[in-house]
């Protein structure tokens, strides 16, 4: 098993148990809207050790931890432009989501044939 496989399993398992615990908590806030979950709840370590421990750690530390473990994406810009900050050209080229390129003006009259296909 590779390191990537281990990370994938760790992520899948932790997400699952955290989601179950969150469903319990959020469900209690909306008691009229929920039924008893049929999702499997095996794994005492995950439920009784991992979830409470994870919840005690502040989000900022968790985020740093995920970065250290290289669970977050690399080679991606992280800082969004703040609201009200004027537009400026990106440092490394044309962004996908605008920028007033020539291509955008071409597309306004484009026929709709590039509709997403085999994707949802």
């Amino acid at each position, binding site marked *: 098993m590779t390191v990537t496989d281990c990370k994938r399993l760790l992520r899948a398992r932790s997400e699952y148990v955290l989601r179950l615990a*969150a469903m319990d908590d959020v469900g209690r806030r909306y008691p009229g809207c929920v039924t008893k979950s049929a999702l499997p709840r095996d794994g005492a370590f995950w439920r009784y050790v991992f979830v409470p421990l*994870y919840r005690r750690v502040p989000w900022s530390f968790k985020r740093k931890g995920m970065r250290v473990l290289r669970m977050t994406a690399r080679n991606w810009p992280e800082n969004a432009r*703040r609201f009200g900050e004027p537009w400026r050209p990106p440092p490394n080229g044309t962004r996908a989501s605008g920028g007033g390129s020539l291509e955008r003006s071409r597309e306004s009259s484009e026929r709709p044939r590039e509709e*997403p296909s085999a994707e949802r």
Partner: protein
Amino acid sequence: MSERLIVIGGGGAGTAAATIAKRVNPDLHVTVFTEFQDIAYSPCGIPYAHGREIPEFNDLFLSTVQRYIDDGLDMRMETCVTDIDLARGTVTARNEHHGFDKLVLCTGFMWEQPDVPGANLEGLHYVKDIRRAMEFDKELDSIKRAVVIGGMWLGVEMSGGLARRGLHVDFIDDGPWLLSELVDPDVAEPAQEALEKLGVNVRTGTRLLGFEGANGRIRAVSTSAGELECDVAVICLHKLPNTALASAIGLELGTTGGVVVDDHMRTSAPGVWAAGDVIEVPHGLSMLPISGLTGSHAYSQGRVAGANAAGENRSYDPVWIPWGFMSGDYTIGGFSIGETLAEAMGIPYVLAQGVGVSRARYFPGAARTHVKLLAEPGSLRLIGAQLHGGEGIKERCDFLAFVAKRGATLDDLAWMENIYSPPIGALFEPMQIAAQNGLAELAQKREQVPV
């Protein structure tokens, strides 16, 4: 000799990559390989064609293969790529080798298959290929009962479509409320009611145990709530990245199982880009990679990959994922995260909630619009939202995702300008109401804190 680009996959990402690449660099020889016989159709419309809201399946076809050929693309339809040799720069399809200088992988997704007895019976249907959907549609005229399995949005759309078609539909979902992986219970409740209004028998908290057959064909679905008779079962579980080729050539895969790309859609191999459901991209809030997004994401990623493969220098942003769909006649939507996901991830948040109307309240057709905003404590920066109601949900979700990406706060929304025109907009914008309510509640809490 001109440079050769091969695009594998004819879905949204693949067609976008190929057409943009050709447009950016007309000298490029662009070849598209797809295992399917069609291109440029909308699979997202399939549930609505089953429900006859879209009268004809043919309405889902938006273009022909010939039009792509006319634009200079070399289209290899019904041609499955079975091997890639990066060192030699060739792909193998139908036992022939085709050379390339650059490669864009858009191999899309596969549906998760249920790991229960009877999953190989006839009569289990997966929604993907339009030709298969057209055959399935013909079967619908002669059957009476369907069970839809899986609490994802496609399950909701398919349940609605089949119920509109007059079938008896059981929809089973093992979560404690409808769409529990995606939405909060307060948003799921009206969505479930809308499905039930169409006649769908929604069974949350119900686990799939197996499929029962007779003569090799499904006759019932076995569940934790008993056996449900049916003529067909529609499986709508998770989308999984189709990484067979990517994995075979040693591309780096990430924690979702998708191909790792950078913000230019470059993979770990030089000269190879990837886009669409086969890749993972970071969520703008957490920077955790995610996969299996929407057709519009696939299309945008394909454009970036294609343009860069053709020599441009484009980048793609981390995603804030505006989403929305119809549950029966009701619309639900949102962006980024809701309460449940925030709780699961341990992300702190404050809530701002409100209800407004989509038009002036006296104008016929005005619908209530429920808005729930999540903001970062302290900065009050928007980090997520869930909405439900009638018209205008989609546009609000798009708007909220966009302004959140740009760092908007509850204060920004509380004092936003809005259109007041009785047929199209009320005096008070529902998002504004929610933000103002949230700020008022926070102010009240601050006052209550003993000094």
